[in-house]
């Protein structure tokens, strides 16, 4: 099952490797990783893995011991809002334009670049919505695609606790 681990870390060189290393040593395959500064001196790393809950619990225990990790949580433990983004380049044919325009009209995507023979579309939403949209586009022939990897926040008023 896909599990989302969110780690609040110090914004220092090498921290991403320290975090990734805890997944690597257990031979986990990372589905996606997304990292970025969220506050001065602080970054948030979101890692999605395909694994059993108990195994991920061990990773979280190890991550919590890292000197540069401020807080870490498995968002599977509470409901969350997750977002993912894909940029997709398609051939600019009449058939494709019709499908893409329907997606834009549905609010699922927007056109971000137009070339002589291609169209680039941005898809933003819950990861499973992106999966569905991409499957639709793949039938039409995708030329190139990139995905950001998921980011997530717990629902409601709760935040990542800073004092364990």
């Amino acid at each position, binding site marked *: 099952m896909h599990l989302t681990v969110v780690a609040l*870390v*110090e914004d220092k*060189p*090498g921290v991403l*490797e*320290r975090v990734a*290393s805890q997944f690597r*040593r257990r031979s986990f395959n990372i589905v996606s990783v997304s990292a970025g500064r969220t506050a001065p001196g602080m970054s948030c790393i979101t890692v999605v893995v395909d694994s059993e809950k108990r195994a991920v619990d*061990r990773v979280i*225990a*190890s991550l*919590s*011991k*890292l*000197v*540069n*990790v*401020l807080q870490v949580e498995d968002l599977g433990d509470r409901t969350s809002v997750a977002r993912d983004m894909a940029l997709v380049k398609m051939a600019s044919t009449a058939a494709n334009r019709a499908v893409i325009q329907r997606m834009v009209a549905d609010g699922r995507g927007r056109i971000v670049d137009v070339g002589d023979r291609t169209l680039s579309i941005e898809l933003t939403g819950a990861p499973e919505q992106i999966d569905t949209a991409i499957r639709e586009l793949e039938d039409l022939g995708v030329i190139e695609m990139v995905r950001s990897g998921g980011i997530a926040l717990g629902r409601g008023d709760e935040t990542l606790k800073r*004092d*364990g």
Partner: protein
Amino acid sequence: MKRTGAQAVWESLVRMGVTTVFGYPGGAILPTYDALPEFPSLRHLLVRHEQGATHMADGYARASGRVGVAVATSGPGATNMVTGMATAMMDSSPILCITGQVGSSLIGTEAFQETDITGVTLPITKHNYLVTRAEEIAPTLREAMYVAQAGRPGPVHVDITKDAQQASCEFEWDDSEIQLPGMRPPPLPSAEAIRQAVALINGAKRPLIFAGHGALLSGAIDRLRELAERGDIPVAMTLLGIGGFPAEHPLNLGMMGMHGEAWVNCAIQEADLLIACGMRFDDRVTGNLKNYAAKARKIHIDIDPTEFNKNVRVDVPLAGDLHEVLGALLPHVERTPRAEWHAWIAGNKGGEAVRDITNLPDDGHLYAAHVIHDLWKATGGKAIVCTDVGQHQMWEAQYYKHNAPRTLITSGGLGTMGFALPAAIGAKLARPDADVWAVAGDGGFQMTMAELGTMAQEQVKVNAAIINNGYLGMVRQWQQFFYEKRYVATPILSPDYAKVAEAYGLKGLTVRQRRDVIPAVAAARAHGKAVIIDFQVEQEDSVYPMVPTGAALHEMIRRDEIVSPIVETGASV
């Protein structure tokens, strides 16, 4: 004041109370070595191999509780430290390893003796640092020293580029509190958790206390003893917990686990409560987890809360420093005699002290057990003994009765051959008045015996007892039990160790008979320089009892009384 980065390295160490450094120079650390004579309060010992430096730092730390420091150059100097860091990591030993790195402009160019060493040591250190600027050196070393000791101790590695050592900086020693927002001590257990633990302890009929390395690290020996005596609760030890409870105390049971005492393992399987103090339920301790201590509730006290429920499901986890947690528990522990439980355990002992060597027939052969037993006798049980891993290590744990903490120094978690001799050198530097012995097999001793050169040059009076059976003994034992006696690559040739010792200007002795053991040990202790004793023991002896991998803790291989001259009296379970 103005300092070069090199001066800042030593100045920082001196300010933090470091007196002893184990190291080996080389190109990328040369600026730092060049500044060393300016700090005459520091004693530097030139080792023969950087692995030796790390084990010496480790032995120093374990003997004293202070951080041990090792220094090496970049590339091969640094990679040679890997085994020592991993050893310290597995056994929660606080060491600080400082390495030189190529100049910062050369990093990533495959420069001469360049290794991405912080990349290499990342998973085998508690934390590591790459320092590229002179002004970062002092604050980094200060933080590194703190991290090595804080909470659960461990190795910390600081890699410093050559240009950072050469550059000048303003040296300002900052004594303010270190800011590490990611390192938080666990909150003390709640009153409710303490109440639950106390209720389990007071209600238990067949409780056992487990003493692990944490008992030594937290200095909780006295409170552990008080808990045992108040509750009349027997105490079993992990390998690294040996010394955490006096061996001669009537409530002492001995070591648990794969080569633990049979009655201990049987008691664990029968217990209704385990009170685990500073240990991690390693697989060598538990045997098969499926039926481990199935009748027992478990209280687990550890400073590292991530150990809870890692291997064994725990009923009451108590996070915190063992000394403090026991302080919270003790006032509520009732004085409860538990005679029935002691009688049950004694029933498994057959009423005789199985490990008492006087119960063993003396058939003229020299057995390792004899050597360890007589070493214990001849040193009054007061030596600091450092061991490698393997048969001799288990015999040491079984036959040398340690009454004091920090007197057995052994590579437990990683099981590092070659640890004993350098660790003994480190222990001697930490405790100059102590009688320090390295006990190693003929395999492990040959891995790091180059450190005899360090002992000779630096005049370190450490004695070594080589348990020489001509085999990589524990591997041979596994081949005997589990590979139908196919002794592949385990017979090993030894040099004449007495001559090796003499070649270094040290003293060497060779012992082949039981009656010569005590005189040899006495002669070694009386001699002014280091003495290496080659004890040539029975070649195909095995360590008993033994819980095979994957077996339940009570399913032990016992000594075959017919073929073996050493008979374990009583204790048939």
